[in-house]
C-alpha cells in the first residue's frame, strides 16, 4: 500500500469520526425532533461514507473491499428512506415542527419540544 492511500485513509477516518461526533452533538443540542433529524442525517450520510471509504482504502482483499462497498450502498439507500418514513410518520401523527414566527428567528436553546405524542 502506498503512503498516499494510507494518509488519505487516515484523513477520511478522522474526518468521518469528527462528523459522527458533530451529528450526535446536534442530536442533543437541536430544539425539536425535526431539526434533530437533520443532525442525524449528517452522520448517516457523509460520516458513514467517509469512514467506510477510509476502511476500503485499507482493505486487504477484494472481498473485503466489495463487502464494504455493498454496505455503503445499502446504508445510502436505506438511511434516507428510514428518515423520510420517520419524518412522515411524525408529521402525520400530529407532531408540530418548531417554526420561527413571522420573519423572526427562534432562539433555540435545548428545551422540551412542543407538541404531543
Amino acid at each position, binding site marked *: 500500500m502506498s503512503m498516499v492511500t494510507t494518509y488519505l485513509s487516515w484523513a477520511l477516518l478522522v474526518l468521518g469520526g469528527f462528523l459522527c461526533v458533530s451529528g450526535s452533538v446536534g442530536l442533543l443540542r437541536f430544539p425539536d425532533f*425535526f431539526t434533530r433529524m437533520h443532525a442525524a442525517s449528517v452522520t448517516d450520510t457523509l460520516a458513514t461514507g467517509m469512514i467506510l471509504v477510509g476502511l476500503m482504502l485499507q482493505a486487504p482483499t477484494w472481498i473485503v473491499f466489495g463487502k464494504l462497498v455493498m454496505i455503503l450502498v445499502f446504508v445510502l439507500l436505506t438511511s434516507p428512506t428510514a428518515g423520510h418514513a420517520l419524518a412522515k410518520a411524525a408529521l402525520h401523527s400530529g407532531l408540530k415542527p418548531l417554526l420561527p414566527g413571522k420573519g423572526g428567528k427562534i432562539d433555540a436553546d435545548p428545551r422540551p419540544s412542543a407538541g404531543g405524542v
Partner: protein
Amino acid sequence: MKIQTLSLTLLLIIFWLLNSGLFKPLIFILGAFSVVLVLFISSRMKVIDEESQPLHLTKNIPAYYAWLLKELVMSNIKVVSTIWQGHLQLQPALTTIKMDHLSDMGKVIYANSISLTPGTVTTDVTENSITVHALDKSSITDIQSGAMEARVRKLDN
C-alpha cells in the same frame, strides 16, 4: 422471460459471488439453487418489475451521483457549522413545493436525494408536490430553484 428477471438474476449472481469469494463446485451448486429459490419467491411476491429493477436509469446514474456527492459535501459543511455554533439561531421551515409529474421511480430518487442531503428531509410526496422540512430557509430556496428536479427529470427519461 422479462428483462427485469434477467437483470435480477444477474444481480443475485454478482451479489453471491462478491460475498462468497469461494470457487468450489459445491458452493456453485448451492449458489445456483439459492438464486433459483430467490427468483421463485420474488416472483411470488411480485417484486420483480421496473420499479425494483430500474434499468432505464443505469446510463445516466453515475453523473447524477457525482453531482449529488458535491451537493452532499456542501450541505454537510453548512449543517456541521450550524451544530458547532455557540448560540443556536435556527430558521427551520416546512414548505410544500409544487412539481410537475414525475414517475414513481423519479419521485423516489428526488425525495431520497433531498433526504440524503443534510439540512433537508422530505416529509411527504404526492402526485404533484413534495413537502420538505429544512433546517434553514435558504435550503428551501435552493430546492425551489429546481436544479435537482431538472437533473432527476433528465435521469427519469
